[in-house]
Every structure is written in structure tokens, then in C-alpha cells.
């Protein structure tokens, strides 16, 4: 069937091959081994926990503590074993079942390329970085000699007319600069239904049928041309693959917070993604960007319906990517994560505040998946587990908090209440409460072991692969790892409390506001204090109570209470660019791209190209859209023609007001109506150029051309 005919034949779906049976068998074995290891480890740990508790699980409180402990230990054990799987596989040269492991470079080179759309959905993004990223990717693709197979689409959902006018101007400049007319397109939706997934779906409905594949990017994504080509070749070689996800590495970190995240991503990332990919195999998840998708299959299976449930489980699906991967799996297509596709990048949120704001959206989105996990028919068990994994990423925090509350009650009961020698109602034998601090220390140490061993294995992996120099040498690498551990330890309780709040907000479908948003690049003291005040107060009260109760319990509470008490200064310090830059100069928290440079990254961040952002140069984008004869024609070409009626009357009134007093006298909505109207753009342009020198537009022209 020809692409573009709209309907898809079930018989076209590729049949299961021996290769597919082989990875399915391997996946079954690996997952069974993981389950066995995790459960065995968690049972032993829970047994220790039972032994540590004074009544050995003899009352409801202790049963609740042990149950929670088991769930949480399972959670951290999964993370530990994923790291272990990754380490072992990397020691043996990587996973032979991975997409790149199955094909040699020579085999891939023989694959013919197919038409591919590179799509970047944007919403009020910084223009210079976003369009600069597209420029770098376009130029990188040009160097491969395969640019003719690729078209770039900027899919804007921006609402503010000054933003989207600037986007349109930047698109035009970029087309001119690259000579990319006919290969670089811009489309803005006037109705932003269903957020990013709706944006992509809109693209697919209009143009999806014309492309075999689409590569989805985020506004901060960056991918090398050769990587894009290899992705298409892999898809060509693997007709059953519906989505191929790369593992993006973080770049361009400047603040302390972002630099720590970036370092962790570069050093620990390969271990965990290799482990994760080896367990998921052809049932991996899609992360929403830096991935290639088979458009026909996606259009057939990736449509997202609104959730039909109550409260949180009603309406648009917020975190669409996991769901789309699950639907592709249900449709019979494979979803692969390939950790060895390099030159795939994204950026980290610069501050803890930004990071938590993102987590807030993700928490709600992931919790929504509970409905799909339980009630959506036909999904693969692996994808239901992926939903559970996403849910637990956020639900683990309130569980930790409840665990801490219960252990505090247990400690208080032991100190304040008389000892109950007969916790069992009809028992003839007394039960003496026992406290084994050495067991508690063993258990706490084993928990720390699970959390930190994979990090040290990642360091061994770096040294083994002779990547130490890329991180500033062994000494600096080790110091950086210690610094990262300190920072992540300080952040863990802050995240726990914030995630608990996000989970509660999502479950009750409400927003608990207790502080203003931080809108500067670096976190201000006032915003940090206000943001972290509840956590600081709760932690301070808890630590004080623990101290009053029992000194030993106070010391146990410190790893959690301490970081919360000092959350505000931690947040402020980590948001600062100065210390981050200083450490970079000294070679700490260094990543390979910083040490050796990268033509792709230099193209975005280092080289000087013509400015694409026009907002601050001379006049606002709306004024430029009216005055600049070329830009006016660009915007006219993208505007609509209105046929008359009430809307036309309204537009005529706006036109007059804009001509007499300028665009700043119009509301955002009014300006939007006006500059979307082709006739108004032309009329205003003509009138402005004929305007008297002392009129609004006469002065605007003078100002515009004086600069």
C-alpha cells in the first residue's frame, strides 16, 4: 500500500521472526531473574526489619512498618539490579540483543533511507536556543549528505502573538540562512488541544502520511546528523520496530544543580540505561523526544482517547509517551531503547525549583497511568509494569514519608507508653521487647549499599573504558562523584516532601499553593525560603521531638531532617551559576563534551551566527511584523483571509485602534486576531509607511530604522 492512502492493512504487519522469539525468551529469563533477586533480597531485608522491631511484627503498627519497608525495599532493589545488569552487560561489550548489537555498521550502511520528518513541538520556548538547535541539526545532516531525505517541522503551540511572530520571523531567517526552503517548515496551531500529543497528532493528520518516519524532538533536544541517519537505517532494518528511543545525555549545564545532574547523567546513565534496555528489550518505553517513530504504525495505534474515569482519571492524558509506547506494543510493534546511539542530547532544568515544577507535571501524568494500567485492555504486561514503575517513581515518596511517621510513632510508643508484654490478645506467653541496634546498623548499611554501589560500579565502568580523562582524571572524577552523592543526599528528602505534595495534589485533583514561583534564572532567597518553609518547619519540629524523645532516635532522624532544615540555602546555592562555572574551570563535574568539545554543540553554543531572536533588537515582533516589508509578507503568507461578518467588523475596529495608538494598546487576544488577518497586516503595513512623522507609526519607523 502506498503511504498516504489513509487506511492500514492488518496483513501488512510484519510476522514474528525467530529473532523476535529469541528476544522475548531472553526478556522472560532476565525479568524472571530480576524478580527472583529482588524478592529474595527484599524478603531477607524484611526479615531483618521484623527482627529489629521491638515486638517483631506483633502489632498492627509494626505490621504496617514491615509491609511498607518491603514495598520500598523492592523499589530500591529494582534500581540496584538494573544497575548491576547494566554493569555486567557493559563488561561483556554491551547487549547483543539491542538494535545496534544485532546489526553491523556495514549492514546498516546498505539500508536505503526513507522520507523522515524531524518534528519539534514548541510552546513559548527561547527562540535563539530552539532555532539554533535546529540550525545545528540541519547543518550536521547536510554534512552526512542525506539531507534530502529529511524535512524539519517546527510545530508551534505558542499563544502569545509576540512570541509566535518572533518564531515566524526566526523561521524565515533560518530558511534564508540555510537555504532550507522546502525542507524546513513552520506550523502554528491556533487551538492547542491535548497539549504536545495533540500537536503531534495534528501534524500526523496533515502530513504524517507523507513520511515513513518521524523523529520527535523537544525544544532543547539536539541530535547529530549521523545519529539521525543511523536511526532511520535501524528502522529500515527492523520493520517490526514501531519506536526506537535514544538515551539523551544532558548538556549545557551552568548552575551547580544542572552541573550535578549532568555529571550524574554522563557517569551513571550508561549503566542504568543499558540495564533498563536489557530488561525491557522490545517492550521499552518512549520518553516523548529524541526518538524515531514509524508514522503509519503510530497513526494506526498511537491515538490517545480521553480518560473516562473520575477526578484525576478524567480528560486528556498528560504524560502521553508511556501510553503511546504501550499502545504501539498492543498493536504488535516493538519499542526499543538503544543506549549506544550517541550524539543525542537534551538540557537539564537549571534549578531545583524548575526541576520540581517539571516533576509536578510528571507526577500527575504518571499517576493518571494507574487507570490505564488497571483497565486498558490488551496492553503487554511489560508495559503495565512500566506504568507501575512510573507511578512508583512518585508514589515512593509518600510511602517513605508514611514509613517515617510510623517509625516515629513506634519510637514514641516505646518511650512514652508502658511496655506491652502481651501484644497477642490470648497468648499465655509474654513477649519481651528487644532492640538490636547492631542489626539496625546492618540493615541501614545494606540499604546504603544498594543505593550507592551502582554509582561506584559506574565509576569502575568509566575507568575500565578509559573514560576517566574525559571527566577530568581519576582524582577529579572521584571528587565529583562524592560531591554528587552529597548533593543527591541533600536533595532526596526535599524531593520526598515535594513529591508527596504533588501526589496528594494529583489524587485530590487540586493545587496546594504555599509559595510564589521563582521566575529568575537563579533562585532568590525570598522565593526559596517561602518555598521550603513548610518542609523546614516540619523537619525542625520532627527533629526537636526526636531529640526530646530519645537521643539515638534524634541521630537516626538527622539524614532526613537535616537536609530539610537547610533546604532553602541548598536550593539557593545549587541554583547559582558562579560556583558551577568555577567547578567547571577547575575540572570538577566535567563531562566529555566540555573537555573535548563537539562540533554539534559548538554549532549551538559557541559559534556566532546571525541573530535569530528579534525581540530585543529594535522593536517588538508585532511592530516588526507591520513595518518590515519582507517580514510583513512572511506573516501575510502565514495569516488567514476573513470573509466578513461580525469577526471582520471586530478586526476592522482593532486595525484602526492599532494604527492610531499602536499594538501595545491591544490585549494579547486582540493582537492575535489582528496579526492572523492577512488583510489587516497588509493595510497596517501600507498605512504605517504613509503615516505622518509625528504619529505613532511615524515615530516607530524612525526608531526602527535608527537602530
Amino acid at each position: 500500500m502506498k503511504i498516504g492512502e489513509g487506511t492500514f492493512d492488518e496483513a501488512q504487519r510484519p510476522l514474528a521472526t525467530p529473532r523476535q522469539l529469541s528476544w522475548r525468551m531472553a526478556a522472560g529469563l532476565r525479568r524472571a531473574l530480576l524478580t527472583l533477586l529482588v524478592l529474595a533480597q527484599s524478603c531477607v531485608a524484611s526479615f531483618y526489619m521484623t527482627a529489629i522491631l521491638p515486638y517483631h511484627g506483633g502489632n498492627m503498627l509494626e505490621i504496617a512498618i514491615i509491609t511498607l519497608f518491603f514495598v520500598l525495599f523492592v523499589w530500591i532493589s529494582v534500581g540496584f539490579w538494573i544497575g548491576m545488569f547494566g554493569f555486567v552487560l557493559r563488561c561483556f561489550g554491551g547487549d547483543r540483543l539491542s538494535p545496534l548489537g544485532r546489526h553491523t555498521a556495514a549492514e546498516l550502511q546498505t539500508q536505503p533511507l526513507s522520507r523522515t520528518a524531524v518534528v519539534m513541538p514548541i510552546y513559548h520556548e527561547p527562540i535563539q536556543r530552539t532555532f539554533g538547535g535546529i540550525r545545528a541539526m540541519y547543518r550536521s545532516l547536510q554534512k552526512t549528505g542525506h539531507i534530502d531525505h529529511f524535512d524539519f517541522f517546527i510545530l508551534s503551540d505558542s499563544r502569545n502573538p509576540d512570541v509566535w511572530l518572533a518564531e515566524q520571523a526566526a523561521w524565515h531567517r533560518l530558511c534564508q540562512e540555510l537555504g532550507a526552503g522546502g525542507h524546513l517548515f513552520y506550523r502554528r496551531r491556533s487551538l492547542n488541544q491535548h497539549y504536545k500529543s495533540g500537536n503531534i497528532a495534528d501534524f500526523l493528520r496533515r502530513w504524517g502520511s507523507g513520511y515513513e518516519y518521524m523523529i520527535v524532538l523537544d525544544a532543547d533536544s539536539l541530535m547529530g546528523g549521523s545519529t539521525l541517519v543511523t536511526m532511520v537505517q535501524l528502522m529500515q532494518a527492523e520493520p517490526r520496530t514501531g519506536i526506537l528511543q535514544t538515551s539523551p545525555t544532558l548538556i549545557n549545564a551552568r548552575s551547580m544543580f544542572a552541573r550535578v545532574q549532568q555529571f550524574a547523567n554522563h557517569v551513571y546513565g550508561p549503566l542504568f540505561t543499558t540495564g533498563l534496555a536489557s530488561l525491557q528489550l522490545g517492550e521499552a518505553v518512549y520518553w516523548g523526544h529524541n526518538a524515531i517513530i514509524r508514522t503509519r504504525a503510530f497513526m494506526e495505534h498511537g491515538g490517545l482517547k480521553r480518560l473516562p474515569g473520575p477526578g484525576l482519571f478524567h480528560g486528556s492524558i498528560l504524560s502521553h509517551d508511556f501510553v503511546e509506547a504501550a499502545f504501539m506494543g498492543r498493536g504488535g510493534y516493538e519499542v526499543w531503547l538503544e543506549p549506544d546511539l550517541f550524539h543525542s542530547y537534551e538540557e537539564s532544568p537549571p534549578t531545583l525549583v524548575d526541576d520540581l515544577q517539571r516533576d509536578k507535571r510528571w507526577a500527575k501524568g504518571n499517576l493518571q497511568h494507574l487507570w490505564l494500567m488497571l483497565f486498558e485492555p490488551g496492553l503487554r504486561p511489560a508495559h503495565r509494569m512500566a506504568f507501575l514503575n512510573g507511578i512508583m517513581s512518585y508514589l515512593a515518596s509518600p510511602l517513605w514519608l508514611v514509613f517515617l511517621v510510623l517509625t516515629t510513632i513506634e519510637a514514641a510508643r516505646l518511650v512514652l507508653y508502658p511496655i506491652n508484654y502481651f501484644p497477642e490478645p490470648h497468648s499465655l506467653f509474654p513477649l519481651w521487647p528487644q532492640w538490636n541496634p547492631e542489626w539496625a546498623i546492618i540493615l541501614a548499611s545494606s540499604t546504603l549499599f544498594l543505593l550507592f554501589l551502582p554509582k561506584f560500579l559506574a565509576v569502575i565502568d568509566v575507568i575500565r573504558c578509559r573514560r576517566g580523562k574525559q571527566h577530568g582524571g581519576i582524582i577529579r572524577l572521584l571528587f565529583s562523584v562524592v560531591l554528587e552523592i552529597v548533593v543527591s543526599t541533600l536533595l532526596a528528602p526535599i524531593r520526598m516532601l515535594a513529591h508527596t505534595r504533588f501526589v496528594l495534589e494529583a489524587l485530590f485533583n487540586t493545587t496546594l499553593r504555599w509559595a510564589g514561583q521563582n521566575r529568575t534564572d537563579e533562585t532568590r532567597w525570598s522565593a526559596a525560603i517561602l518555598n521550603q518553609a513548610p518542609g523546614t518547619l516540619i523537619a525542625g519540629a520532627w527533629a526537636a521531638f526526636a531529640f526530646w524523645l530519645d537521643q539515638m532516635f534524634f541521630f537516626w532522624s538527622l539524614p532526613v531532617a537535616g537536609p530539610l532544615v537547610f533546604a532553602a540555602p541548598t536550593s539557593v546555592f545549587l541554583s547559582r551559576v558562579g560556583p558551577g562555572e568555577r567547578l567547571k574551570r577547575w575540572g570538577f563535574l566535567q563531562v566529555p563534551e566540555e573537555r573535548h568539545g563537539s562540533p554539534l554543540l559548538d554549532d549551538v553554543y559557541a559559534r556566532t551566527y546571525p541573530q535569530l531572536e528579534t525581540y530585543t533588537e529594535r522593536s517588538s515582533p508585532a511592530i516588526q511584523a507591520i513595518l518590515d516589508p519582507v517580514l510583513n509578507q512572511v506573516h501575510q503568507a502565514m495569516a488567514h483571509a476573513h470573509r466578513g461578518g461580525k469577526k471582520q467588523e471586530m478586526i476592522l475596529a482593532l486595525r484602526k485602534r492599532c494604527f492610531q495608538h499602536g499594538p501595545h494598546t491591544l490585549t494579547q487576544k486582540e493582537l492575535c486576531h489582528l496579526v492572523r488577518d492577512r488583510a489587516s497586516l497588509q493595510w497596517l503595513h501600507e498605512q504605517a509607511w504613509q503615516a505622518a512623522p509625528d504619529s505613532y507609526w511615524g515615530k516607530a519607523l524612525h526608531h526602527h530604522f535608527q537602530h
Partner: protein
Amino acid sequence: MARSLAEHSLSRVCDYLSAMGVELTRDVMLQALTLVEAGLASEQKDPLQFVMTRVHDHFAIQNPDLPTTAPPITRGSMSFKP
């Protein structure tokens, strides 16, 4: 010192031409002066309006070669069935 309407007219024609990518050579400037002169000599009260409505006819201004915003639509549909 305040500029006269003639100066404003000349300046505006030059600004427009350069914004359209026309190089302001001696010949172009002379042509611009003749347009302004015609504007001043005309019955019309406002020479600015006169020169700006005739600037396209007076000069051989090429319209910019605009890139295609989007390829032709090849309509398809998203399926929502399980």
C-alpha cells in the same frame, strides 16, 4: 532642527528600499529624489503618502522569495481503536 516633509519622504523611501534589499546606489538615490520631487510638485497634500503609494511602481522592486511554510497536505487520520 526639525526635518522638512521632503527630508522625511526621502528618508522613508530609502529606508523602505533598503529594507526590501535594494542597494542604495547613486542611480537609485537619483530615482528616489525624482519621486520625492514628484510628490512635492503634486496636488496631494501629503508627499509621504504620494511617494509611498508609488514606490513599488517607481522602482523595480522584486518581491522577496518566500520559503514554503508547509508542504502540501497529505491528509491521514489517527486511529483510536484498541
